[in-house]
């Protein structure tokens, strides 16, 4: 039998890492070198943290199969944690940046665990309701703690750490970490819960543990995205994290295809760029979103990519197979 062409494991990682480094360098040259109009270059950065928000939400909706409605709440927790730390100026800027991002993630993850343990142990739709409440409570708290958060006036003077390079390194680390997690026994455990919880338990999977793990990881990355958001604007106001913000992120995931990381990335890029590209239509944004959502639900209910995940190596393999197959045919014709 003929051996099918496959790219060996180390080479796969090599190809992917090479491409990502190239993307970072070129992107940094274009965005950092001011080759784009300011609105557009800032949009490219925004796409970055929306990608993080979408792929992290996808972890708990698409992969774990739960429906949290308070993703913006975790984003808010991370945003304020990171911003307050950065403003304190405790550390020199590079160290401050890294520690602030980690702190943002960890604080959000702690909230994730605190909410996840009671909410995820219950069967049914409790998680949706509890996370919805959580998102609102966080916003009210921020509003009413002006001494720490600046209250409704907003938190000003946040160091602008979120450059293209910083945001996209975070994007790559997030996508990489979630990918590594999902392609492991832990990821399969998470998927098995989505597929059939009783069967997962009967296979010896600690379902509560994995639900909380996935949910906390999801919150962690939302927190990081929140900090990046803060470092992009330089200002935080509680209104940035209302219920509609959570719904926006959920919409990206649904449009991209629940359970598809590539889908989340593409949908985040499209939906975040739309208002900028179609500036004149900006006021109709919500109508366009709603229409898009309806169209997708009618024509492709599983989202743009369904649960399909893109693999560059697989594409290359297929190309090579097609080319070599063509060559064999030519030989045969002679």
């Amino acid at each position, binding site marked *: 039998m003929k051996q099918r062409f496959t790219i060996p494991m180390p080479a796969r990682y090599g190809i992917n890492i090479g491409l990502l480094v190239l993307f970072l360098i070129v992107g940094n040259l274009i965005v950092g070198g001011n080759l784009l109009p300011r609105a557009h270059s800032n949009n490219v950065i925004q796409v970055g943290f929306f990608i993080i928000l979408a792929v992290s939400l996808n972890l708990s909706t698409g992969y774990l199969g739960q429906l949290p409605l308070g993703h913006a709440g975790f984003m808010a927790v991370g945003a304020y944690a990171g911003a307050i730390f950065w403003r304190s100026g405790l550390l020199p800027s590079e160290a401050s940046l890294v520690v602030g991002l980690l702190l943002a993630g960890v604080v959000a993850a702690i909230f994730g665990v605190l909410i996840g343990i009671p909410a995820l142990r219950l069967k049914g739709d409790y998680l949706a309701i509890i996370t919805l409440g959580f998102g609102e409570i966080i916003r009210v708290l921020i509003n009413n703690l002006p001494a720490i958060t600046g209250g409704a006036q907003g938190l000003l003077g946040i160091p602008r750490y979120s450059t293209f390079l910083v945001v996209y390194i975070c994007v790559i680390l997030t996508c990489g*970490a979630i990918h*590594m*997690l999902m*392609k*492991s*026994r*832990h*990821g*399969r*455990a998470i*998927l*098995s819960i989505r*597929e*059939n919880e*009783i*069967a*997962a*338990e*009967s*296979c*010896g*999977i*600690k*379902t509560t543990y994995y639900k909380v*793990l996935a949910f906390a990881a999801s919150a962690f990355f939302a927190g990081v995205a929140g900090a990046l958001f803060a470092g992009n604007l330089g200002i935080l106001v509680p209104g940035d994290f209302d219920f509609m913000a959570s719904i926006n992120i959920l919409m990206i995931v649904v449009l991209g295809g629940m*359970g598809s990381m590539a889908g989340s990335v593409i949908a985040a890029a499209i939906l975040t760029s739309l208002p900028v590209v179609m500036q004149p239509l900006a006021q109709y944004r919500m109508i366009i979103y709603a229409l898009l959502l309806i169209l997708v639900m009618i024509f492709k209910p599983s989202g743009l990519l369904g*649960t399909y995940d893109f693999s560059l190596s697989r594409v290359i393999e297929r190309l090579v197979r097609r080319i070599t197959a063509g060559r064999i045919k030519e030989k045969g014709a002679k």
Partner: protein
Amino acid sequence: MELKRDPRAPMIPERDRDKRPALECVGLGIDFGGLTAVDDFNITIAPTEICGLIGPNGAGKTTIFNLLTKVYRPTRGSIYLDGKDTKSMNTTQANRAGLARTFQNIRLFKELSVLDNVLVGLHNEMDYRVAGALFRLPGYWRAERIAKGRAKELLSIFGMEGMAYHKAGSLPYGSQRRLEIVRALATNPAVLLLDEPAAGMNPAETDDLMHNIKKIQETFQIAIVLIEHDMQLVMGICEGVAVLNYGRLIAKGTPAEIQSNPKVIEAYLGTGGGGDDAAS
């Protein structure tokens, strides 16, 4: 006296006489509201026996599996696994203590590949932690390689290695049932509970299945409890058979004894058969 044997140890095969039972139920019972679905269920399963559990529709067979695997909490009675009381265990812990099962209404991880279904079963055979996965430490590669090999080995029992990368939900019905058995086996059980494994299979497939169940018992040296309506299968491989009617044991014995037991005959002829199950 219909029960010809000692009711506490009714059908222990000769080879298991001196061994501790793999599974023991004492006075097991459950009520759903006013309905007593199972009552006073006693059974002892030897470490390597194949035991049949039969009875008309709605007799409570699946409910017993749900009790054993802690999907339901018993109202009365106790379950012992290898001598240990399972009172405080949940479904996950019951599996780790040695109980694996299949479901009457197939419960595969449909969107996952056949291989991944088995790998979920092998979850606890692997030992790397989350960090091992995130950083692709050597422990990750080693455990995944070994598990993959093991999964393919287990799939080969039913000649299913070729389907490893197919979506589980896309398999034909019979293969789905076989995959459930493989997945259950992957968890390395001491007792394997099979709920109507031959349902929906044609006679040739059923015959094949029968030989494979026997083969599994011989190679893995485990106990197998089998719920089945196909009498040919039950009488063909079971060393002991327990008969359930309206949630109560009405007979226990060898297949030959069961076949000629008037109570059993009456239970099968006397009832018109119930509806389909809710929670199987």
